[in-house]
């Protein structure tokens, strides 16, 4: 049996996938196949759950039946406990996919006299393995034997024999062990199980607990060496290997709308890049959530799913508040395009938040994510922790081409704002700054694009107005009076309008004056022309009279000469 197995593993170590989200990525494919793995940790860290899930996934997803040998918990308890993770152990037992054997070790029931061995356990394990053809075995926690039996020498020898026997059987086994003082396990199980050791940890810092997992060693295989946060949720175990993403992700050239046309115009005319990370900072009440809601609204309009993590408001409150500015998100939540996940930042530690978000994103598969606000999360951890968490979150989102919008509450002082956010802003591709502009006894909102990688963005501060009909972005008044917003801008605009009107009136009167002048001039011209025409007629009449006179004179002259009997003919006066 062993020989058959070992023939197949010639080059790389064969692995048995656990089916546990994230763990297979950290271990580069799963646990060493046909070998025991030690899972150790302190009480309540989730060792048993890891074991149970390993068996359940094996039975349901990889068709590898498994044996659970429990030394501490009664089978009924194991079954009840794992039901809360959605595992139906009863059903698996009935289908012969799982065999549960409870080994009771009670010191006061047992008297030791002389030599013995643990053949009883061997027989039971063997029977269990053979009866369902098991490929996986979990021993939880075999260390209980050390409390039940006094002869440590026999125990150690027998455990060594047990683990090598398990290898011979070719089953992939998980052996759990309680963490000891300065050692991995209380009774030094790591001496016997040395192929793969996984350590679970449940730490409480500032009254907030975080579960972490680390692969301490994995002989003959590469593995992630970091501590990874993990969750035990409604669907079982999930580990988050997100720090391993790095910068290898593809980038998209696709642009998506921010939901506000004017803001898109400020962002090179087309909006955000798909898969980019957007940070909106601003002091209280500058409209960060409103901007975020417009963004998810736009995503929903495109028919894309979006996930809204709210750390300040409840989903109903967000929906109600957005309705007050004329944005109705309810149809999208009803359609299932938009989901809210509201929780208090102090509910879990930072790592756990990350883990939860990771899991929910994996489940819902949104194309847009809003985290509103990250500044509340920052309060739950140190700056370096927050930075590393955000980095991992951003990397993860980018690898999935999910556009992420983060809001962050900042102090009102804009200088310190830009300074304090440096750590976070370097991770972000686009940074929108919402600011207060106080002028003339009122406060108005301004928006500008502080940075936006890969696009020609506007450098202008715009006035950001929230009305009952939605968000409006307007040009601020920039003139000899300086930058004006709000009612001062309105006053200035009114003043300008008045001036314009006045000027228009003036122009009108000037035009009318001109008209009048023109009319007068034309009347004058007409009079002159009439006078001239009259004169012309008069002159013509005089000329005709003169001509008539000349002709009469000629006639008279001819008649005169004729009467005088002149010898000389008279030439006509006109010379013709």
């Amino acid at each position, binding site marked *: 049996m062993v020989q058959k197995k070992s023939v197949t593993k010639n080059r790389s170590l064969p692995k048995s996938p656990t089916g546990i989200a994230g763990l297979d990525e950290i271990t580069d494919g799963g646990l060493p196949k046909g070998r025991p793995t030690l899972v150790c940790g302190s009480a309540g860290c989730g060792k048993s759950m890891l074991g149970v899930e390993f068996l359940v996934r094996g039975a349901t997803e990889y068709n590898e039946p498994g044996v659970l040998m429990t030394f501490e918990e009664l089978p009924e308890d194991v079954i009840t406990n794992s039901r809360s993770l959605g595992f139906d152990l009863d059903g698996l037992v009935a289908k012969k996919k799982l065999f549960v*054997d409870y*080994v*009771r*070790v*009670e010191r*006061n*029931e*047992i*008297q*030791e*006299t*002389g*030599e*013995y*061995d*643990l*053949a*009883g*356990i*061997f*027989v*039971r394990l*063997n*029977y*269990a393995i053979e009866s369902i053809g098991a490929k996986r075995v979990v021993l939880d926690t075999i260390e209980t*034997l050390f409390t*039940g*039996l006094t002869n440590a020498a026999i125990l150690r020898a027998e455990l060594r024999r047990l683990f090598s026997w398990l290898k011979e059987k070719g089953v992939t086994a998980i052996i759990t062990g309680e963490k000891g003082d300065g050692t991995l396990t209380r009774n030094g199980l790591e001496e016997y199980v040395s192929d793969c050791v996984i350590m679970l940890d449940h730490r409480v810092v500032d009254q907030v607990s975080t579960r972490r997992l680390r692969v301490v060693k994995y002989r003959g295989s590469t593995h992630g060496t970091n501590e990874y946060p993990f969750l035990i949720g409604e669907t079982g175990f999930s580990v988050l290997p997100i720090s391993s993403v790095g910068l290898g992700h593809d980038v998209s050239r696709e642009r998506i709308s921010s939901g506000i046309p004017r803001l898109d115009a400020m962002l090179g005319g087309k909006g955000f890049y798909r898969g980019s990370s957007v940070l909106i900072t601003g002091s209280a009440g500058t409209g960060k959530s409103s901007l975020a809601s417009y963004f998810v609204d736009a995503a929903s309009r495109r028919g894309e799913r979006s996930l809204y993590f709210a750390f300040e408001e409840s989903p109903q409150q967000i929906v109600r508040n957005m309705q007050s500015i004329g944005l109705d998100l309810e149809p999208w939540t009803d359609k299932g395009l938009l989901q809210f996940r509201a929780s208090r930042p102090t509910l879990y530690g930072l790592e756990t938040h990350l883990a939860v978000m990771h899991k929910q994103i994996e489940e819902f598969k949104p194309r847009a994510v809003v985290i509103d606000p990250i500044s509340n999360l920052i309060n739950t951890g140190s700056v370096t922790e927050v930075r590393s968490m955000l980095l991992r979150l951003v990397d993860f989102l980018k690898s999935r081409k999910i556009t992420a919008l983060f809001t962050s509450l900042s102090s009102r002082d804009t200088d310190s704002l830009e300074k304090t956010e440096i750590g976070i802003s370097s991770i972000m591709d686009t940074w929108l700054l919402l600011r207060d502009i106080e002028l003339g006894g009122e406060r108005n909102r301004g928006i500008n694009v502080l940075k936006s990688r890969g696009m020609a963005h506007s450098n202008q501060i715009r006035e950001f107005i929230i009305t009952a009909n939605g968000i409006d972005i307007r040009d601020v008044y920039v003139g000899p009076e300086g930058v004006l917003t709000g009612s001062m801008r309105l006053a200035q605009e009114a003043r300008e309008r008045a001036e314009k009107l006045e000027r228009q009136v003036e122009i009108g009167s000037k035009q009318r004056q001109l008209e009048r002048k023109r009319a007068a001039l034309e009347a004058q011209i007409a009079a002159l022309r009439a006078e001239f025409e009259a004169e012309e007629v008069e002159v013509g009449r005089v000329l005709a009279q003169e001509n008539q006179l000349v002709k009469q004179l000629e006639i008279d002259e001819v008649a005169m000469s004729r009467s005088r009997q002149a010898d000389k003919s008279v030439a006509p006066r006109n010379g013709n």
Partner: protein
Amino acid sequence: MKPKTKRVARKSYSKAARQEQGGHYDLRLYVAGQSPKSLAAFANLKELCEVHLAGKYRIEVIDLVKKPQLARDDQIIAIPTLVRRLPQPIRKIIGDLCDRRQTLIGLELSEKAEN
């Protein structure tokens, strides 16, 4: 499972039980094949019973190699294991029973042994 009672109290209880059940001993020896330890255990047990429980005991030898499912049913961990099924309560003694005094304590027969 019974809370851990004081030894004296349990002893007096089991004495009473023994009287009720006529002092009959129902013993089971779990072995795995013909291993030397198993054979030694059986020999030791037989001898002890003949000395201390002559005529009021029954020994049943169970080979787990042949009936492995019984290991689970009777909560057997070690081999050899001697189980005193009667008189109540059930007592378990593991090992090859080479130490007679310990075995007698295990079977709660120490008083008689001293007598």
